[in-house]
């Protein structure tokens, strides 16, 4: 029987010829990662194994990105415990502030995550790496601790759902964020619960790697175990200059079995805005027209990559952020930041009246660097708009891609980019 790309990767890492959905397997890990919130808890759990050394210091990534540069003493203590563990265990993939970036932007950029890998991360957006054709899934700190100790994790092989995007006739400004919000809007926040979301079709083939990362990043917002896109020439071009170890390319068999198949026409997908308080409340930007906002955030592991900044800058060039709006722009990594500087994007942001921050997850999860007060409303390129996500429990978050976010920052209310450009 044919297998999906997800099934093939899992079978290979379990030393099996074949796996079927529902099967419980133990898989060998290529990478286990954690951040400054989940890492310290995993370190405490790892101590319970009474082991001197982690399984393999070259296959672990510890990324202090959530509350860094540290916002208070308590978070500084968390970072300290991560730092000391990394030093003590000689963890290869640890970056100090000044070199670190947002984990799911940084690790692919540095070639740490590669096609065909099995990756667990104590961060729900670990599913981002599926854009490389890897099996990557979020876990908690205890699962991560077990991974640090054993180099293995147990998995229930997920059923796969296939999402085919037909055509390449994109509406103006539409990108990966709109495709994934549209999809979540169709299936709901538990529409892919426990399942793999496989994205395919001409529409996906047309997208850059940055856009593909955005799509797989939000598979978790439909409840999925992983999101995945089979590698093609664009994937190979991306990893070729980065990979420091061998990797393997997998493709789904033509006769692979899918629990469900969805087909969407690219030309039917308008710019999306997800209303509070769930990502499934996705509507066209026209339906959000005129909603007044107080803050705009452009960044995060979802939309903090170079192309996102280029799109935002294209709209903001020569314009001013509305006087009642705080616009916060956060490049995902130091390399993205530097490239944005070289291209003059940072000048455009600052001239427009934006805050430009060092890479951090900060405001996305209501950590710091842009917390909302009671009754305030943000439009954000991040991934979640849950109650209290960005601050006060009575604040609100709307989600969009970078074009709508930048245009709305100029207008002071949610608008279609054509009203500004």
């Amino acid at each position, binding site marked *: 029987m044919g297998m999906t790309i997800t099934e093939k990767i899992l079978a290979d890492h379990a030393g099996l010829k074949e796996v079927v959905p529902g099967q419980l397997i133990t898989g060998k890990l290529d990478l286990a990662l954690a951040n400054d*919130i*989940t890492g310290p808890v995993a370190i405490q759990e790892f101590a319970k194994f009474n082991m001197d050394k982690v399984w393999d210091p070259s296959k672990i990534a510890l990324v202090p990105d959530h509350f860094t540069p540290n916002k208070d003493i308590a978070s500084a203590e968390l970072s300290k415990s991560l730092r000391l563990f990394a030093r003590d265990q000689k963890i290869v993939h640890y970056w100090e502030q000044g070199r670190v970036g947002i984990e799911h932007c940084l690790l692919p950029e540095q070639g740490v995550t590669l096609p065909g890998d099995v990756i667990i991360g104590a961060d729900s957006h670990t599913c981002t790496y599926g854009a490389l054709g890897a099996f990557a899934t979020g876990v*908690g700190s205890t699962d991560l601790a077990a991974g640090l100790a054993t180099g293995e994790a147990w998995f229930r092989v997920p059923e796969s759902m296939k999402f085919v995007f037909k055509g390449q006739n994109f509406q103006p400004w539409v990108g990966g964020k709109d495709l994934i919000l549209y999809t979540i809007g169709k299936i709901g926040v*538990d529409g892919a619960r426990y399942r793999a979301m496989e994205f395919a079709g001409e529409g996906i083939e047309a997208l850059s790697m940055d856009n593909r990362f955005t799509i797989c990043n939000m598979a978790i917002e439909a*409840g999925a*175990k992983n999101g995945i896109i089979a590698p093609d020439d664009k994937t190979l071009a991306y990893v070729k200059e980065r990979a420091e170890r061998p990797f393997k390319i997998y493709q789904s068999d033509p006769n692979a079995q899918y629990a469900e198949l969805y087909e969407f026409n690219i030309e039917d997908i308008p710019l999306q805005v997800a209303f509070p308080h769930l990502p499934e409340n996705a509507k066209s930007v026209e339906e959000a027209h005129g909603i007044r906002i107080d803050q705009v955030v452009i960044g995060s592991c979802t939309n903090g990559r170079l192309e996102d900044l280029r799109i935002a800058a294209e709209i903001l060039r020569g314009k001013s952020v509305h006087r009642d709006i705080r616009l916060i722009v956060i490049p995902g990594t130091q390399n993205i930041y530097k490239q944005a500087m070289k291209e003059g994007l940072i000048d455009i942001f600052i001239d427009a009246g934006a805050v430009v921050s060092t890479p951090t997850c900060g405001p996305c*999860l*209501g950590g710091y660097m842009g917390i909302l007060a009671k009754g305030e409303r943000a439009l954000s390129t991040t991934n979640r708009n849950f109650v209290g996500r960005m601050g006060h429990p009575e604040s609100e978050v709307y989600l969009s891609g970078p074009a709508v976010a930048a245009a709305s920052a100029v207008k002071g209310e949610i608008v279609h980019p054509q009203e500004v450009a």
Partner: protein
Amino acid sequence: MSKAWRFGDDVDTDVIIPARYLNKTSHKHLAAHCMEDVDASFAEAVQVGDVIVGGKNFGCGSSREHAPLAIKSAGVQVVIAESFARIFYRNSLNIGLPILECSEAARGIQAGDDVSVNLETGEILNVTQGTRFQARPFPPFMQELIKAGGLIPYIKGRKNNA
């Protein structure tokens, strides 16, 4: 008496324990802010042995293990829901927070009802209304994990037996 606390569908980990409290890992600290953004009275009023009842997709969102830890540390005996988000499901088993999947119970228990739960058999009794429900049994592997007291004791036990 085990009092039921009822919450709706898609209860996310951000409301179970908001990120502004994730700068500390002490269980007491997490318990003190459990469910704060949906019910500010919960953390103070919840009693040891109480039960949380949720709708579909309970625990969606972030992978923070702090969420089941906060619920467990607040003294909650078990979470009953129509369905659970997968990372929360895994985390709960791993840290030893009992969870039961049962649509009928999730719909048939009202806030404040007195609920009695047999974790071994998955039988749920609504004492107040005199109704009885049967939760879906866990697959054998998860039962072993639960019996061992979580993932780490399970792995250590397996190593010792190898």
